[in-house]
């Protein structure tokens, strides 16, 4: 039973992509970099090049972490959802198969200044 109800009931999701004026949500997380409380919520057009989104929307948000300047997006390990993934920075989000509300996570093994005490 998908909901306890007195009669058949179908819910309407509030966050469908068509409610975002032609944009979509992408979550981008930096593994082990806990200065940032959650993955960043980025709202952009699906036609935007992945590389542009990372440079223009994500990189500025990473600045407060001392490791930020050392990150080369081309050399980090990527996850799409929970699966290892190879991004194409020149292709659009849509062509990279990045769906609405999808989470991308990048890992920078060996690079973790603020987390060093925690390991």
């Amino acid at each position, binding site marked *: 039973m998908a909901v306890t109800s007195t009669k058949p009931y179908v819910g309407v999701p509030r966050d469908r992509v068509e409610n975002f004026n032609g944009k979509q949500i992408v979550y981008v997380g930096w593994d082990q970099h806990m200065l940032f*409380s959650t993955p960043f919520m980025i709202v952009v057009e699906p036609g935007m090049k992945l590389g542009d989104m990372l440079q223009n929307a994500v990189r500025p948000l990473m600045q407060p972490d001392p490791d930020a300047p050392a990150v080369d997006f081309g050399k980090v390990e990527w996850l799409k959802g*929970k699966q290892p993934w190879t991004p194409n920075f020149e292709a659009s989000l849509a062509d990279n198969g990045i769906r609405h509300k999808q989470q991308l996570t990048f890992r920078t093994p060996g690079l973790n200044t603020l987390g060093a*005490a925690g390991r």
Partner: protein
Amino acid sequence: MDMTVAKKKLGLKEKYKLLTRDLGWEPTYHNKDEVFPYVKYEGIKVHDWEKWEDPFRLTMDAYWKYQAEKERKFYAIIDAHAQNNGHLNITDARYLSALKIFLQAISPGEYCAGKGFARMGREFPGVGTQVACQMQAIDEIRHAQTQIHALSNYNKFYNGFHAFADARDRMWYCTLPRSFFDDAMSAGPFEFMIAIGFSFEYVLTNLLFVPFMSGAAYNGDMATVTFGFSAQSDEARHMTLGLECIKFMLEQDPDNLPIVQNWIDKWFWRGFRLLGVVGTMMDYMLPKRVMSWREAFEIYGIENGGALFKDLARYGIRPPKGWDDAGKALDHMTHQFMLALYQYQFGTAFHSWIPSEEDMAWLSKKYPTTFDKYYRPRWEHIKKLKEAGTPYANMGLAKLCQTCQIPTVFTEPDDPTTLCHREVEYKGETYHFCSDGCQHIFEKEPEKYIQGWLPLAAIFQAPLNGDLGAWMEWVSLADGKDNGDFAGSEDQRNFEAWRNQATSNQ
């Protein structure tokens, strides 16, 4: 002539019977299912409503008398507090943040509980149940009202109190308690009783009231202490009603057990998430602290809750599913919460701050295995950023949990260096969660939770369409006054100036 003398006084039991029996008539031209249409769909089987006893047997006339007496005392103290500038007796203006969160996030919950119990007073068929729910409905509205009145005095002097109702409806951190109560109010009557009557009132209320009211006393806030006392005497009645309800369900039919257990699992976890805010106030926002969140949870959660679940074991009830995960989170959650509040402080109608050296020393003492190892380095770095003139703000906005609706700030139960990442695909859409507990709740009733109004996603939809200035106006947040760092705030300056005036000749 012989006169029949009326019996002078009715006994309590007799009076209760006379004053309530008319609610229990047998309908003749409708069947009972039509009169009480919501009492069966949750699957709870009841064979004999007479078995539900209201142990207090309080009648309306007695109820009015008690409550009126409490109100008289309460308002006398509130008046004295206002006339004597009681707001200047608090330890420090940082304490006000705890009050602002209470007013924006918790008091409206009292009002919701009032609405919910008013409905339950109508939906339950048993007379004892109806009367008890109606009185609790009035109690809850009284609590909301006395809290708002007590705190209105602070609104004359400080920022962040002026728009608590807008905050409750629209603020991103307020959707945590809001979604808790919306979830309960849109559930059936029995689930509502487990959510509010049992989980909230019985298992968790001590964690909310005792540390918070002691916190108020420790920090010189007579107004809050007074509403605490005024409310507390009702709580015994509420707790009894919640416990009575759960025992009634379990005694009526063995088929009720799995349904009740499922609700206990769900509402324990929702309540635990909600209390994370209270824990954060205790650990970080009280200038003079009573005990740590961990210590409070050990006493009121683990000891008292443990004893309760032992008692319920004879019905086949086991401790809630999230119990172990809750235990693992105790040393981390308030630090994770406060770091989040600090980095998003441009969007909060209260102030947050970097803990002082003294605060951090206290935190390391109270959280010896985690604070220095995981959280102090982050605060030290944030302090460095501030000193360098580039104060830390996370403008990336947060990923929210579809169930509890708070930012997904919590880590894996067994790995405090990795954020918990849980996602579920349902009818082609992706949904994210902060924990296994919240994911399980979603998976049991996805059609309910896909409708969740996530406040940060809402900023990018009509009518705000991504305009942060319009958002501030819409949530009634006065930029530069209500939000931001406590250090340098108008509240800090005013409090210091007024207190100096009151205590010196300057």
